């Protein structure tokens, strides 16, 4: 309980620091606030530090980089009893030598050690109270990947919470991480990629032992000559494409602390670390993703709605923007369609999607499966890495080198199942659009536009929390539907509930 309370106080401080960052007027204040938040997150370990690493992204130079580089590790004398208890043996029976840690991470820290005269290993030890702390923080903070309009309108927050919780719990089990690393090591075969060898007999749920590998961080590798940077970039791209499309097991934590680089003349090595956060993508979804890319390249035909649904999208919601899907797919998969080296710096996906969908982009996001943000984060990580290296490479040829021809052919002939969409009865009327206007106190108003006949589906498309307000206002949605069916879809206000905390206005126009 005390632990929960202490971490609660720490979280309040973090929230306050985050608020300061948002409100900072000058760049100097902004940076100072970022540094303060970085310190707080670093001193918290666990989930807040994980969030900090997320904020750092792939940029090795932000104040948050401290979180991916090094934070104050625990002293060896505090770690030794944990190792002894896990191995059920005195340390000297297993290790010839172990050093103080110089790299603390969010959930544990790494010590360099020697098994014998030759074998140098990295011993990753989990902080003893971290599992409880993570649960406490999820309960306390409800840290979510999105807010604003997405949170307000039909967004399945529970499944997001579950995805986040599952991911973190997997990360806490080092035996799970060991298995993932072994699988990745034995399946993914990319030139220039090195996955450190693990020592399974020494691994426990809270201890992971793997070969020690030296290397420099991303920020230093970006200063290397262009051929070396291009080689690394290709390795990173092939690693992602092969692990995603061929094996469906992707490294899901693309922050700079998980990458090291070695410069060997013409063939630099990329060392991938930390396999705790791996993302599994089942075969159908992989085929759907590859199918979408092939479609966008004009190499096959598919029904986009069905293919997106196979990816995990919500059919009914996506059907509302079905006419936009061809263009949307082209935007999403643009790097794979360009017949030239792709410049990630010019790829402004968010702005392009906003231009295409307007407020309907929130609809698109709310239709997306909860774990999509993990895949998006991986893609974002790759794009940021390429941007950081300042290199441009064509994506499609690199994908075809990383993924077997059989896989691509399978996707080419694969067809998605047809999606049963709930049929909305035909109803005449001069109204063209259903407008949903939501104004919450102290928030920016949200405006969503849908085809007019969606007014007949209000019961299904309204989030549950809005249903409650409608019931409180004595509005009978069934009755409203019958009236519309009888009188037609003519311009009119359907629902207008105004209170101190919110204003919901739904109208046909």
């Amino acid at each position, binding site marked *: 309980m005390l632990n929960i309370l202490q971490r609660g106080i720490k979280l309040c401080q973090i929230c306050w620091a985050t608020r300061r960052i948002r409100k900072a007027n000058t760049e100097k204040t902004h940076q100072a606030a970022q540094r303060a938040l970085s310190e707080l997150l670093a001193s918290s370990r666990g989930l807040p530090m994980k969030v900090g690493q997320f904020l750092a992204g792939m940029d090795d130079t932000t104040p948050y980089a401290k979180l991916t580089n090094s934070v104050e590790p625990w002293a060896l004398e505090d770690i030794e009893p944990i190792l002894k208890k896990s191995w059920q043996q005195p340390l000297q029976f297993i290790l010839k030598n172990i050093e103080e840690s110089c790299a603390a991470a969010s959930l544990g820290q790494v010590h360099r050690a020697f098994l014998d005269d030759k074998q140098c290993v990295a011993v990753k030890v989990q902080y003893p109270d971290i599992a409880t702390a993570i649960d406490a923080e999820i309960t306390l903070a409800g840290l979510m990947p999105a807010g604003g309009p997405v949170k307000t309108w039909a967004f399945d927050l529970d499944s997001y919470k579950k995805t986040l919780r599952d991911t973190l719990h997997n990360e806490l089990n080092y035996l799970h991480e060991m298995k993932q690393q072994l699988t990745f090591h034995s399946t993914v075969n990319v030139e220039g990629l090195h996955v450190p060898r693990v020592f399974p007999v020494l691994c426990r749920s809270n201890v992971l032992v793997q070969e020690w590998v030296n290397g420099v961080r991303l920020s230093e590798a970006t200063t290397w000559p262009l051929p070396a940077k291009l080689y690394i970039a290709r390795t990173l791209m092939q690693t992602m494409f092969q692990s995603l499309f061929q094996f469906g097991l992707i490294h899901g934590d693309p922050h700079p602390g998980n990458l090291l680089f070695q410069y060997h003349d013409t063939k630099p090595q990329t060392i991938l670390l930390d396999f705790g956060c791996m993302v599994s993508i089942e075969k159908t979804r992989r085929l759907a993703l590859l199918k979408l890319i092939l479609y966008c390249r004009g190499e096959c035909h598919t029904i986009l709605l069905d293919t997106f649904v196979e990816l995990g999208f919500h059919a009914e919601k996506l059907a509302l923007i079905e006419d936009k899907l061809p263009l949307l797919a082209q935007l999403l998969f643009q790097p794979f369609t360009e017949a030239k080296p792709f410049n990630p710096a010019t790829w402004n996906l968010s702005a392009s999607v906003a231009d295409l969908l307007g407020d309907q982009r929130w609809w698109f996001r709310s239709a997306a499966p909860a774990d999509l943000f993990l895949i998006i984060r991986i893609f974002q990580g790759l794009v940021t890495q390429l941007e950081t290296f300042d290199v441009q490479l064509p994506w499609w040829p*690199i994908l075809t080198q990383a993924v077997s021809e059989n896989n691509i052919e399978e996707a080419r002939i694969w067809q998605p199942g047809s999606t049963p969409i709930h049929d909305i009865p035909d109803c005449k009327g001069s109204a063209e659009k259903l407008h949903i206007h939501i104004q919450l106190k102290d928030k920016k108003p949200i405006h969503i536009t849908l085809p007019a006949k969606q007014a007949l589906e209000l019961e299904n498309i309204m989030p549950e929390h809005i249903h409650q307000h409608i019931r409180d206002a004595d509005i009978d949605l069934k009755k409203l539907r019958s009236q519309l069916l009888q009188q037609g879809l003519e311009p009119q206000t359907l629902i207008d509930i105004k209170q101190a905390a919110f204003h919901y206005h739904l109208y046909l126009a």
Partner: protein
Amino acid sequence: MQFAIATYLNIRNPETAASFLEDALDFKIAYKAGYGWWAENGAVTIILQESTTDNATIEVQCTHIEKDSACLLQRPDVQALTDIQQNQNRVEQQLICDCGILLRLSKVLNEDEMGELLPLPSSLPWDNKTDEITRRILRIAPLSFREKARERVTQRAEYIAVESGSLMVQEAHAMQAFVDITLDFQHQTLFDAMQQESIDASTYMQNPASC
């Protein structure tokens, strides 16, 4: 000729200057009470303002500076102040007119006139020899299309290089890129340009002459 100018020009004798602009440079002249002499050529308007000294320079951008200069110098009221001189990426000449107007003829040189082979907009490293050959072969593209051709052949060659597993563009990638981006009816010119660079063009395309 194209004209680039300022609006007000100070001149001792605006009427003579206006007459010169009309006669030599095809301006339309009008006198507007309260303003003075106006000279217009459609795109620009010059207001000639009476002054105690002449301070009137007009820059004339030419397509053929030698021809335009010779034409102007045939007039008895125009003398050359300087020869035609190259200054970085342009050639210039100054002419003085009896009416007090200083004409600065200029012409921006294109890459062929400067004898330059402009760099390729590359993302990948290129083999030095391939880079030079590519830049030379690009000269077969008309100037107005050259920049686009340079961009397209570079992008295509780099795509082919990566497709073949290389991260450096070699001769074969660049030549194949030329074939891919060149329209069929221009293949003979491309074939000859490759042969001129001692490249066996038949490796990349059939000799159009044999078709």
